[in-house]
């Protein structure tokens, strides 16, 4: 039984069809990253799941129970917001305690003065205090407990928000770009923390981001959503190395994958410069248009030789541990990007004519509708599995 | 024990007076308790409040109504007829309520109240300015011509000094002082014709015009005129004697304040309107009515008058009070400023109240047209005729 399952969720705002039948299952303890460009409907999906918005159609099952019409408060879902949404008037400790107070104390007990006089109140309150302190300790924010959000840095706020979400052991954990307000260094650090926390808590998590590096580095599985549809849901490796759709390949990978328009030749082969691949199931007719994709790290640039595609270096981007080379293919008027080490890049400079070769094992072929066509290097046909060994 | 709720207007004048009277009254009548409702700032606001409250639980048991609004109140059957009460009471005349005094608070023969504070218009003057202008303060002007002549000289003193402040604002009272003083009337006997635009009225308006033209009377608002006079910047002020006490206080010893009788356009037959208010019983509760009657008599009686007169400047509404040394006899000897009003008492006739529902509007029309003369935007004849036409329109057509 999956911990969470979304069945065919549809949602329109006004005339805009935002979610086009999204289906997704998460196993117990699984960390799923939901990535996609801005505006593709990620937050909307999360909000529907949390019960903050209602789907036009489709079902939501949490731990097997139909929760489609349940009230947000009854779903036992925790959410971390992009803005953290901490209560500005409460201290960190009070913020973290809110979900516990709301769930464990009856309304009468929550009354300002009367509440204190009810039997068992002390115990209940002490329990909450203990849980808050434990949670804070595990996120290393014990020293912040008395501060209000206004007195905390972005990273600290984010941790308090995490603590507030985790403290009540939710059945599902949702995060909507929780790191996007942090600066780059902090972001990398926070990633680790969230993964760690997730591992310890074991709560199934849906993590929304538009940063593909986050998605790849954190998730058990990555769901790529584009234009309101889930195009692929798979492990980071598979998403990166075996994208099933041209949009997935385009969205994942930095710098972006090189995409070159091409045609299927006779014998169901495709060619990128001298490199050739054959379509495995030969489904595409000769002459039909396809798109070839090759990631920058699989493009090699050489100043010598006359093999490969002739190109001219347009621009070099030095990034410290690597150099991005923008090469102009004058013949077809396109730019191809290669990623090389600083050592390899040392003798390259703008304007220099070079030859580009693509690693045949890493060429993706996409049909006109964007779906992936199985292909193999022509020289030695190997099964796809072997490639990822 | 009976509790009476008493409402009165113009607390600035009457608060202390009322407090004194009620304390004394309660001393003498321990079984009656007086409590005051919130007072109203003016007669108009007072009557409004009463009309709003008429018939509700909020209605006070006793109120004090401006003499010229008694008719309006009566048309709405608000006051309790005092006729039967007076009839039962044998000693009215003994207590100083002469027929003339009683008449002041009658509407069409019905006794709707007892005059409480009565006033007439007098002349206040700044003896220092009169002297500076070459006049003799001990011989104040007796005619309007003299006023105008001396006023012009005072005005000529310069330094921002004005000649005359004639209190034409607010209502028709001071206009009627001129009109009655010339022997005129507002309406014909049967109230079917407007008569204030007759020769007497014309004289009245022409006088105002002359005050402006010849004596340089400025356009004052009510308060501005008052303030200028007490600051010593105005030679003559013509207004109710009721303002005397406050004027004395405001003047202090800044200058030598004097009063005199107001000149009359017809020194022979001229009359003067009676300002002031009457105590009116509102409660229809039998038990309360008795107590209320007691209080009304007490307030309007010699004791009340002996408090009101020195406390304000109103003239005694009660003949006993005026004459008896027990009450005010000595007061007048010691306070010559108060004598002007007293001397004019024989000339007092009721403040004319217009018939019909537009009474207040009529007075406003007269005020508005007077202001046109004062600010010289109309000739006296134009203004008077316009006023007459408008008033004709406003009177009940029957």
């Amino acid at each position: 039984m999956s911990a969470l399952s979304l069945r065919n969720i549809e949602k329109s705002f006004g005339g805009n069809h935002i979610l086009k039948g999204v289906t997704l299952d998460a196993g117990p303890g699984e960390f799923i990253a939901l990535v996609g460009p801005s505006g593709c409907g990620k937050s909307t999906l999360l909000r529907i799941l949390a019960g903050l918005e209602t789907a036009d159609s489709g079902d939501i099952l949490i731990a097997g129970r139909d929760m489609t019409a349940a009230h947000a408060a009854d779903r036992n879902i925790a959410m971390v917001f992009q803005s953290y949404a901490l209560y500005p008037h409460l201290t960190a400790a009070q913020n973290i305690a809110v979900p516990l107070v709301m769930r464990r104390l009856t309304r009468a007990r929550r009354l300002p003065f009367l509440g204190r006089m009810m039997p068992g109140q002390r115990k209940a309150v002490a329990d909450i205090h203990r849980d808050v302190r434990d949670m804070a300790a595990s996120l290393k924010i014990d020293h912040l407990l008395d501060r209000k959000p206004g007195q905390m840095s972005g990273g600290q706020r984010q941790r308090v928000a995490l603590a507030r979400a985790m403290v009540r052991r939710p059945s599902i954990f949702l995060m909507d770009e929780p790191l996007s307000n942090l600066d780059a260094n902090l972001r990398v650090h926070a990633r680790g923390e969230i993964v760690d926390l997730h591992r310890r808590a074991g709560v199934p998590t849906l993590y929304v981001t538009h940063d593909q590096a986050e998605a790849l580095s954190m998730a058990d599985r990555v769901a790529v959503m584009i234009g309101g549809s889930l195009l692929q849901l798979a492990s980071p490796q598979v998403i990166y190395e075996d994208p099933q759709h041209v949009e997935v390949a385009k969205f994942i990978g930095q710098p972006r994958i090189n995409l070159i328009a091409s045609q299927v030749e006779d014998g169901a082969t495709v060619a990128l410069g001298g490199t050739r691949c054959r379509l495995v199931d030969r489904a595409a007719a000769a002459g039909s248009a396809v798109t070839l994709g090759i990631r920058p790290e699989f493009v090699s640039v050489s100043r010598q030789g006359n093999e490969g595609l002739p190109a001219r270096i347009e621009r070099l981007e030095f990034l410290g541990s690597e150099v991005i080379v923008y090469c102009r293919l004058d013949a077809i008027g396109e730019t191809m990007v290669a990623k090389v080490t600083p050592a390899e890049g040392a003798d390259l400079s703008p304007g220099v004519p070079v030859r580009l070769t693509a690693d045949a094992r890493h060429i993706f072929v996409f049909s006109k509708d964007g779906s992936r066509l199985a292909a193999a290097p022509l020289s030695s046909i190997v099964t796809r599995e072997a490639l990822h060994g | 024990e009976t509790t009476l709720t008493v409402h009165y207007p113009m607390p600035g004048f009457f608060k202390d007076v009322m407090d004194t009277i009620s304390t004394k009254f309660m001393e003498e009548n321990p079984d009656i308790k007086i409590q005051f409702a919130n007072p109203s700032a003016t007669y108009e606001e007072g009557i409004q409040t009463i009309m709003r409250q008429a018939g509700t639980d909020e209605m006070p048991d006793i109120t004090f109504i401006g003499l010229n609004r008694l008719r309006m109140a009566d048309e709405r059957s608000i006051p309790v007829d005092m006729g039967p009460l007076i009839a039962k009471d044998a000693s009215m005349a003994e207590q100083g309520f002469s027929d003339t005094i009683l008449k002041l608070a009658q509407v069409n023969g019905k006794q709707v109240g007892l005059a409480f504070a009565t006033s007439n218009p007098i002349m206040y003057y700044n003896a220092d300015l009169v002297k500076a202008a070459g006049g003799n303060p001990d011989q104040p002007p007796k005619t309007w011509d003299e006023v105008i002549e001396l006023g012009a000289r005072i005005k000529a003193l310069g330094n921002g000094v004005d000649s005359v402040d004639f209190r034409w604002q607010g209502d028709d009272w001071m206009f009627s002082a001129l009109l009655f003083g010339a022997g005129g009337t507002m309406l014909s006997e049967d109230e079917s014709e407007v008569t204030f635009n007759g020769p007497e009225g014309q004289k009245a308006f022409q006088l105002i015009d002359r005050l402006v033209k010849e004596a340089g009377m400025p356009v004052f608002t009510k308060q501005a005129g008052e303030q200028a006079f007490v600051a010593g910047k105005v030679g003559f002020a013509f207004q109710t004697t009721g303002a005397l006490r406050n004027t004395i206080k405001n003047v202090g010893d800044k200058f030598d304040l004097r009063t005199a009788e107001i000149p009359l356009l017809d020194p022979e037959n001229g009359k003067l309107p009676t300002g002031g208010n009457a105590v009116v019983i509102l409660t229809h509760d039998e038990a309360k009515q008795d107590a209320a009657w007691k209080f009304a008599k007490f307030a309007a009686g010699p004791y009340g008058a002996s408090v009101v007169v020195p406390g304000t400047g109103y003239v005694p509404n009660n003949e006993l009070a005026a004459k008896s040394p027990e009450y005010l006899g000595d007061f007048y000897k010691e306070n010559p400023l108060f004598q002007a009003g007293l001397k004019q008492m024989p000339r007092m006739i009721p403040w004319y109240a217009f018939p019909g529902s537009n009474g207040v509007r009529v007075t406003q029309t007269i005020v508005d047209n007077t202001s046109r003369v004062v600010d010289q935007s109309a000739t006296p004849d134009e203004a008077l005729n316009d006023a007459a036409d408008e008033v004709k329109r406003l009177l009940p057509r029957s």
Partner: protein
Amino acid sequence: MADLAAPSTGLAGTVPRAGTPEQREARIAWLLAAPALLLVLVFIILPVAAVIGLGFTDFELGYADFRFVGLENYAELFDDRTFQRSLWNTAVYAGIVTPVSIFMALGLAMLIEAEGIGRSFFRTAYFLPVASLLVAMATVWQYLFHPSIGPINAMLATFGIPGPNWLGASSTVLYSLSIIGVWQSVGFNLVLFLAGLTAIPRELYAAAEVDGAKSGWDRFRLVTWPMLGPTTLFVTTISIINSVKVFETVKTLTEGGPNKASEVLLFTIYQEGFVYLRVGYASAMTVVFLAILVVLMFLQYRVQDRQVHYS
């Protein structure tokens, strides 16, 4: 201890959990708005309805019965010179007080905003008139405006200017009242503008300077004025409403005089209703007054809203 174990649905609250979440939300919204709605109904809508109803009668205070007279009151309004006069006076008054108090407040707000010291002093000084008690202030103004002993004219005299008879002359009374009106409302507008100014991002001014807006005026035109659009719209709305509602100063200082030179709508209505006691007629005036306000607001929104930018 039993309640500790209460299920999480224990906070279901007063709202039954039926229907779709949308319906639920709408229902809660209704419940939350209900008290306000009820009170608006009781204290605004119904009385206004009553006033509209009375406008068709000849009801007079003090008389118990009345009859329906249809549109008679409205017909009378058409040739009521006092009413026309007061319409005109109100228009003049609002026409002076609204723009002057807005621009004065804006200018002062910008000066205060630019100045480092004494902010709270100035804020308080200019706000004080808003908190003033008119019953008493009327006396003060009476004195300040006094034609012969007033400080204003005394000051003018030292410059050799003969001061006008501020409240006494029909030619100046409306302007004098306008001065008091401005005095009373500048502080209110000022505070609103101060708030609006603090909300303008500093970077826009930096951008304007870099873009070559050298003078303060250029920066005002380029940044301040447009960015204050929403505030100005609000301030204008409130100012128009308040200046059309002028009453207290007229009542306490001039009683509409001299010769109706300072008759304004609310005063005329008050006079008709409470002094002349013609409630029916006054009600008809009130209806016209409210209609004018509604139309005015509608027009103002149509005109100004189009030019206002909301960020």
